[in-house]
């Protein structure tokens, strides 16, 4: 903290020139953590000291040491490398889910809010039904039907995570529907899809982004949960959830095997939660100073 505050400013100095110093906020911490996470995923081959899948049985279950910073697992694989590589499927899953849910949620919400009437009632009740489903349980059921794998995991989790976006977009569209600028747009003959996507969508997008960042923490936990239950990415690939599951077999004697990926999950969901919180504060004028 100390180096962030420069030498004691004189009173005149403080009055005339306010220098924007890098303040530590929730947003900046979250952003840095997320950047670290993404960097880990992208640069995994450069960062990881070992091949994550090489099994050296003679080095199995080693405690953390100078060579293996986080120790090794039951097959003698370096845990640090596996944790770093594990960021890849997690982030891939998260981005797949976002790509699937945000457009669907916005489309459903905006169209319901804009069209109104029976269409809105039916669509919003469907949304409520999906919203009431317990996410992980439904995802498990879907994965067991569709088969395990990254893509199916993403589909299953996306199926239950779009309703919040839809509800939010609908509420915003309802508030916007009576606004003067949409009336003005109608007076130019703009209507239907053009009005929905040209005029309403850009106004709903910022809050959808914030909402997405906030829900990412939960999605990461859910995807790790799928992995833990063996419903996510299949074993040889490093994936945090399945690594925790492996480590839990030996958790009383070799705690680090489960702790390393567990810490990574904690780190990732914390990063996205902080980012989401920070974004929300930033976008909400009531939180601003």
């Amino acid at each position, binding site marked *: 903290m100390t180096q962030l505050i420069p030498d004691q400013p004189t009173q005149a100095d403080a009055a005339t020139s306010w220098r924007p110093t890098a303040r530590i906020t929730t947003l900046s911490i979250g952003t840095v953590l997320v950047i670290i996470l993404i960097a880990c995923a992208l640069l995994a081959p450069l960062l990881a000291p070992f091949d994550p899948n090489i099994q050296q049985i003679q080095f199995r279950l080693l405690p953390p040491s100078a060579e293996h910073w986080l120790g090794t697992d039951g097959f003698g694989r370096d845990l640090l490398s596996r944790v770093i590589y594990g960021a890849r499927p997690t982030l891939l899953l998260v981005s797949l889910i976002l790509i699937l849910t945000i457009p669907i949620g916005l489309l459903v919400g905006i169209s319901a809010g804009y069209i109104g009437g029976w269409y809105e009632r039916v669509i919003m009740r469907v949304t409520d039904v999906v919203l009431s489903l317990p996410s992980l349980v439904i995802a498990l059921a879907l994965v067991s039907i569709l088969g395990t794998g990254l893509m199916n995991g993403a589909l299953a989790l996306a199926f239950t995570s779009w309703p919040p976006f839809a509800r939010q977009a609908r509420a915003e569209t309802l508030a916007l529907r009576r606004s003067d600028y949409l009336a003005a747009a109608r007076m130019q*003959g703009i209507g239907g899809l053009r009005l929905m996507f040209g*005029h309403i969508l*850009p106004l709903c997008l910022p809050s959808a982004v914030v909402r997405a960042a906030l829900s990412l923490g939960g999605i990461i936990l859910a995807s790790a949960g799928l992995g833990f239950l063996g419903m996510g990415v299949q074993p040889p690939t490093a994936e945090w959830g399945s690594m925790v599951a492996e480590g839990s077999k030996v958790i009383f004697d070799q705690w680090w095997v489960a702790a390393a990926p567990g810490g990574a999950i904690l780190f990732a969901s914390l990063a996205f939660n902080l980012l989401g919180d920070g974004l929300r504060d930033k976008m909400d004028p009531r939180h601003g100073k």
Partner: protein
Amino acid sequence: MANDFEKNQQKTLHNDVLVAKDLTVYLPGPRPVELVKSLSFRVGKERVALVGESGSGKSLTARALMGLLPHPCEVRASQLTLGDQDLLTLRERQWNQLRGNRVSMVMQDPKHALNPAQPIGWQVEEPLRLHTRLGRKERQEKVLEMLNAVGLPDPQRLCKQYPHQLSGGMGQRVMLAIALINDPQWLIADEPTSALDFDMREQVLDLIERLVEQRNMGLILISHDLQQVSQFCERVLVMYKGDLLDELPADQLAYATHPYTQTLWSCRPSKLTHGERLPVLDRALLESLKHASPQQEPQP
């Protein structure tokens, strides 16, 4: 270009007049409530003012002409035509063809009538994208030309700015640019100056007058400022509680014979009336006049 040519030809072929006969806006229900009662008027290529106090149905009339009545309201008329087009039978799609193309509307408050999430250039360009088949470059050119025509400085830079970066006067000019970019035949201005300060009012009205003149358009100006109206318009329609009470040339406003118009005209404070009590509307008299007048028709 062909489109433009056709439009011009259309303009010259038909001496376009907006005709409304028995225009009624009502709230449907078991006991329908009439908000605008049997209005009849014709507007050609002239400047017509629609005046009246708040709630007299001025804006509803204007909105009925755009086909954009607020939700439960419905419209009924024995004739409502725009040139050769019958407005009563239009479907939503055809309305959209009409709005912004043949009839445009400028609203009260520029601060609220521009979409805050889109740059100015995009918003001015949109009617062109919708109603014409011009290429991207031609559209850009036309946008700059239009922004220039409404007296905005540095259109190039302005195109990239967002509504919150403009002042009220600039915003109203942008609204005008949007309304006029497709060369409509009618402009409906719903109190275009009430959100502006006094100097700006004069400027914007001058601008509207000039553009309407240049482009040979019809103007329906909704206002409650009689002074303003008498300067800028040729004809005045006076409304009260949904009825058309009086219709007279704008320069005759000072010599109006109808008691309501007289009171409206004379109840403005000025130097001459300093220290005196301003006349107050005699509503009882108005009611009795209304019941006596033959305009009140039996319910159909």
